[in-house]
């Protein structure tokens, strides 16, 4: 864990006096970001660009929630994608079979995710490191196999087809592309803001302490199991939100959403962007999607190109892009002070 710890050293001192200030700054930042994203359709009619941002929203929510586990708590989950798939399937199935309004289905999906995540998490978080990774992977594949084999309910390997009904609510019509776009952006910004609050809260610092020294945290009277379980469920909720955005975007759900490669991509995104900054996974998401889109357009052998890029990050930079930038900036600053 040396790579991870190194980047975290200075972040560990909570600035208590500045906490309120920081919160207002985060909210202001979120509002500006939302205003910029939401006004994008006014300047460009490019459907491809809006689609790209919607996909970034879905994957960004997922990847950032994974960072709550990997970066903040030190829980390397290989099965986080199961909640992405669960969100997509649960939302799609509720909309198709029960014909309720979208906010109701949204809330019901979050409730279902919380219930399943609490059950799976209660078993998983007892295990350490690589065993935690493997048992989450096993649960992910179990859910994937269930989706495949329960064909009458989930559509099996064909996925959930026939489209997801999108009745209008509160004047928002999600079958309208621009409405869908703005809603996705809003969900992304709200989700990121909520996760930022979790990460900066005392609970967030408890998680960092568990990551750095679980035994010490336990001596200080923290119920490590409960804290890990709580963050596991919270992260699952945001991943599920990402899955719902994806289901709304493609108007369906496919078994690939619950396949382990989604978890692998999530880990990759985190490494690409960096795990020691909050926005690292977001940067990673944009990078990976851009990379995927351009490389698939240029060559049919995109595995080689993607592989070489990964190698460059893993063996060359040895950290994510935003981690690298943050370290470079702080080194520059230190050098300046030294002079």
């Amino acid at each position: 864990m040396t790579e991870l710890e190194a980047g975290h050293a200075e972040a560990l001192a909570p600035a208590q006096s500045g906490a309120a200030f920081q919160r207002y700054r985060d909210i202001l930042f979120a509002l500006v970001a939302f205003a910029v994203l939401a006004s994008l359709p006014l300047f460009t009619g490019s459907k491809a660009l809006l689609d790209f941002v919607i996909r970034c929203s879905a994957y960004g929510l997922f990847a950032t929630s994974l960072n709550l586990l990997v970066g903040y708590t030190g829980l390397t989950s290989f099965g986080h994608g199961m909640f992405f798939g669960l969100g997509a399937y649960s939302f799609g199935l509720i909309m198709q079979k029960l014909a309720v309004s979208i906010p109701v289905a949204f809330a019901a999906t979050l409730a279902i995710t919380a219930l399943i995540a609490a059950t799976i998490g209660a078993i998983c978080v007892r295990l350490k490191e690589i065993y935690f990774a493997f048992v989450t992977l096993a649960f992910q594949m179990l859910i994937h196999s269930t989706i495949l084999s329960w064909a009458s309910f989930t559509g099996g390997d064909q996925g959930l087809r026939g489209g997801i009904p999108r009745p209008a609510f509160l004047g928002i019509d999600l079958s309208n592309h621009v409405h869908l776009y703005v809603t996705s952006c809003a969900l992304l910004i709200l989700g990121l803001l909520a996760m930022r609050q979790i990460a900066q809260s005392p609970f967030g610092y408890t998680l960092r302490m568990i990551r750095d020294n679980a035994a010490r945290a336990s001596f200080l009277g923290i119920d490590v199991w409960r804290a890990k379980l709580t963050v596991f469920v919270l992260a699952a909720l945001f991943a599920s939100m990402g899955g719902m955005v994806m289901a709304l975007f493609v108007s369906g759900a496919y078994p690939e959403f619950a396949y382990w490669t989604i978890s692998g991509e999530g880990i990759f995104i985190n490494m690409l962007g960096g795990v020691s900054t909050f926005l690292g996974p977001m940067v990673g998401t944009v990078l990976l999607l851009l990379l995927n889109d351009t490389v698939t357009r240029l060559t049919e052998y995109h595995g080689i190109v993607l592989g070489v890029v990964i190698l460059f990050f893993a063996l060359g930079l040895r950290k994510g892009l935003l981690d690298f930038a943050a370290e470079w900036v702080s080194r520059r600053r230190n050098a300046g002070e030294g002079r």
Partner: protein
Amino acid sequence: MTVSAAFAWLLAPCRARCNESAPVDLDALAGCLSSSACLVTQTTSGLIIGMLLFLVAVGLTLIFGVLKVVNFSHGAFYMFGAYFAMTAYQLTGSFALAMLAGAAGTAILGLIFERVFMSRVYGADVLMQLLVCYAFVLIFDDVVRIIWGPEFRSMGMPAAFQVMPLFIAGGVVPPYYLLLIGVALVAAIVLGIGLSRSRIGKVIRAAAHNPGMVSALGINTGLIYGGVFALGGMLAGLAGALAAPVRSLTPGMGFSVLIESFIVTVIGGMGSILGALIGALLLGLIRSFGSLGFPLFTEGLMYLFMVIVLVSKPTGLFGKEAA
């Protein structure tokens, strides 16, 4: 039986409502268990799945035990072993040379891979090691696609084995299956005895335990690491070469094998050779009999089994307590 009963209950509504093939067919399973012919056929097919898995998984577990690295790209060595064997067989027409090419080719590949790339990320974050391996999974798959083409290829059964199958207690057993099981068993025995008795085996175990001390005693640990990686790659390559006549070859074929051999090592306990053997055989039998009783949920059964083992004994059946 409670687990299967639970799944029967879970999946029962489908059987009543839809007219697809039933996901749970316990009658077929019971029917097979009561017939010796079916029992023999299913057991042999379970054994060859298990033995191939063992050869891949034992390399994985060896590399983990000594190098403390989870080789996520291990499936690629299985794939290369199969393709090397196919090419060698097409060029020379000799089955023995094909096996040799599969094993030796992947051993060299493993040595280069370890020395040039993996040795740079020892001691780094686990995620970093996984990432390097993941990159090579992508690269190797595309390399195979470029050299051998994206379509399914097949090596074909060597003429020497195109003979009448054996009939054992009414069950059909192709002679090639016996060869495959035999080779894997020999590999298991040689490996087990070699590691526990021979001098090199002792040095390897010492290096797994305390590399600093081994290196201080004047032994080149880098060479040992490279050698272990080459050995692991060779075993996976041998598995691929042995599988080439009975499976179809495609880029990405290593992946399902990789996931299954992960399950094997986790069930058996990371770092344990006996565990890998038992785990692989159990998984093979689950696959072959599970495909009768739960045709659509065979994979699910394996993961369920893994979850049960991990929850009851996190270090696996034969794993030692984590250091």
